[in-house]
């Protein structure tokens, strides 16, 4: 298993190494460079999100949150007189579809930059083409240890990768609840592998075992996985699947009489999920990457009231995520000396300690592409979540 994961890393390195021409120093802003997607009156931004399939809630609400923010900015006149034209294409959470759509966005629609995104396997599929084309990608929600570093220098990450997230979460659960064995069900590939690596790092030296079952998204029947988990006798089961798949897995587990304690990735703290599957998820520990909607932080409260004024309802977690992705893109555009891709890159690299309230403070740099490294924890009690650990980084 180790050898093949090394092979995969070498492969990605090789792929991107061929593509990477420039040296890894600060990107120089070239105001006279020709960049697509910018006219005298508008800037074209694009994103790929799952609008159908088992991950649809992420994409539908994420794009709604981003659109709300861009609408407010456009109502106020845009950025230096340029209105933002934001296109979202449906990648159905499938890498095959995403790698086709990125060409549509970058070659046919000729967007200036990619702003936001939702999902890891679908985003990873577009990275080679993205890097070749030289378009920056701003804050996609695609946690992965493959991103957030100079292997993919055009991708600016604000989503903590799953190694960090699950390490922090496992550390807390092991210290607080003292389980004997843990189960993990995760989307096959990078997502599951990273989560497993994080869990194993946290249990090192404690004698707690980690039992990993990879899952293919959109699986119709979760009974075999549920049976395997039950037989492995895990006290706690960690979950990182699409929300719909998580719910159906919990139902399958209940049907065979297996109800362990559960912990899951940040996307589960979502009103839609809680409404459909909250009864099965009571007491679940959930990672927290964005601030709670009822937070006392004045910036968060301003976001909630602005969002409500624009759309007429209180935002949910995915809308919050989409909103902050747009917020970061707009800040980078506002600070950019000119509307060219190199200047946008330079502007992104210069972001230091940017406080949105929604995310922990964001810092990028000439060689720093992981802007955020802190994660908090909440617990589902009743029909809402309660904070148990505030944002913290790995020690």
């Amino acid at each position, binding site marked *: 298993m180790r050898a093949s994961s090394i092979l995969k890393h070498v492969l990605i390195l090789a792929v991107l190494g061929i593509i990477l021409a420039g040296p890894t120093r600060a990107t120089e802003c070239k105001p006279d460079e020709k960049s697509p997607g910018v006219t005298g009156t508008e800037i074209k931004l694009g994103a790929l999100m799952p609008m*159908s399939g088992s991950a649809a809630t992420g994409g539908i609400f994420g794009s709604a949150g981003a659109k709300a923010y861009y609408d407010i900015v456009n109502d106020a006149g845009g950025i230096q007189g340029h209105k933002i034209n934001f296109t979202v294409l449906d990648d159905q959470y499938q890498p095959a579809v995403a790698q086709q759509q990125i060409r549509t966005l970058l070659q046919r629609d000729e967007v200036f930059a990619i702003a936001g995104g939702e999902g890891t396997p679908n985003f990873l599929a577009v990275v080679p083409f993205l890097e070749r084309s030289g378009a920056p990608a701003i804050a996609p929600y695609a946690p992965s240890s493959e991103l957030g570093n100079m292997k993919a220098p055009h991708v600016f990450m604000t989503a903590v990768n799953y190694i960090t997230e699950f390490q922090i979460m496992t550390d807390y659960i092991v210290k607080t609840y003292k389980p004997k064995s843990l189960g993990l069900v995760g989307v096959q590939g990078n997502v599951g592998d990273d989560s497993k690596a994080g869990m194993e790092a946290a249990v090192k030296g404690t004698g707690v075992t980690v039992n990993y079952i990879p899952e293919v998204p959109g699986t*119709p029947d979760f*009974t075999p996985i549920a049976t395997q988990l039950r037989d492995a006798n895990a006290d706690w089961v960690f979950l990182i699947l699409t929300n719909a798949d998580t719910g159906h897995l919990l*139902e399958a587990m209940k049907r*065979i009489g297996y109800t362990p304690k559960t912990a899951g990735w940040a996307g589960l703290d979502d009103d839609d999920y809680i409404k459909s599957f909250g009864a099965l998820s009571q007491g679940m520990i959930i990672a927290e990457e964005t601030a709670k909607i009822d937070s006392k932080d004045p910036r968060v409260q301003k976001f909630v009231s602005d969002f409500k004024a624009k759309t007429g309802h209180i935002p949910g977690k995915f809308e919050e995520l989409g909103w902050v992705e747009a917020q970061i893109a707009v800040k980078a555009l506002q600070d950019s000396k000119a509307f060219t891709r190199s200047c946008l890159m330079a502007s992104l690299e210069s972001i230091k300690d940017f406080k949105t309230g929604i995310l922990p403070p964001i810092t990028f740099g000439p060689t720093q592409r992981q802007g955020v490294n802190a994660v908090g924890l909440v617990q589902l009690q009743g029909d809402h979540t309660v904070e148990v650990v505030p944002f913290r980084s790995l020690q």
Partner: protein
Amino acid sequence: MLSSFHFATLAQVAISGLALGSLYAVALLGVLIVYQVSKNINFAYGQIGMVAAFGSYFLYSTAHLPTSLAMGFGILAAVALSALTDFLIIRRISHRPGLDFVVTLGELLLLTSLAELLLGTSAQSYLPLLSDLSWTVGGVFINANDLLAVALGIVCVAACAFVLTRTTLGISLRAAAEDPAVAQSVGISGPALRTATWAVAGLLVGVAGMMFASRLSVSSFYMTPLVINVFIAGMIGGLERFWPPIGAAFFIALYQAIISYLLGEAGGVPALFLLVIGALSVIPKRFLDERREARA
């Protein structure tokens, strides 16, 4: 990945496999009667079951109909759809062998896409249909839904066997299939009887579809892997027979359940594959040929 051996778990896996086999048998009955009466296969058969389940889901969750009414309408929709398939399409191509497959494949695509368009692409939880009722007997966890499935299987199989062999209706059906001209001459109306048979098949797959949905979840595509297993059971047992394919349906369900238990969920597909290849090599040639060319 060999998990540790627990008798209680094995027993539960076996019961669950038996329940699944019963549902496969119910669905298979529809395939058998359609094939034996009209010599056709409906590749969209599973989707007709999906219409019953997904349709009733829509009716009770969005239109807020009472669940029993929603289920009733779902079944009606499946029956109507199956009858219409015969009436509008199959009748036109029954004299051209082999086309039924292609045209019903088109119907499968059509129904899947329509369901996605109208009801979304996510899988939704369906009515529990007793799956929330359970007991632990001697350490073995028993789910009422499993018992319901087995009961349905027994009832449907027995009823079909009885009708086909002991009633005049059944005998006329088989007569009409054997020789339509002769059957017509003694007053047995071929086409009407055929459409009625397709309608009954719709009923059977509708019931099976709703039960499957209660055990898994309902989506536009959930029936496809299940109905593939049903067709495989028919293929192994022989679509012109009755008890061998029904037996094959139970066997496949138990076989897959136990393999998944022993080897993990990754074992299912290759195990099925090996079973089919094995069965094909062992079954004598004369049981396989479904085209009797000399007769043509």
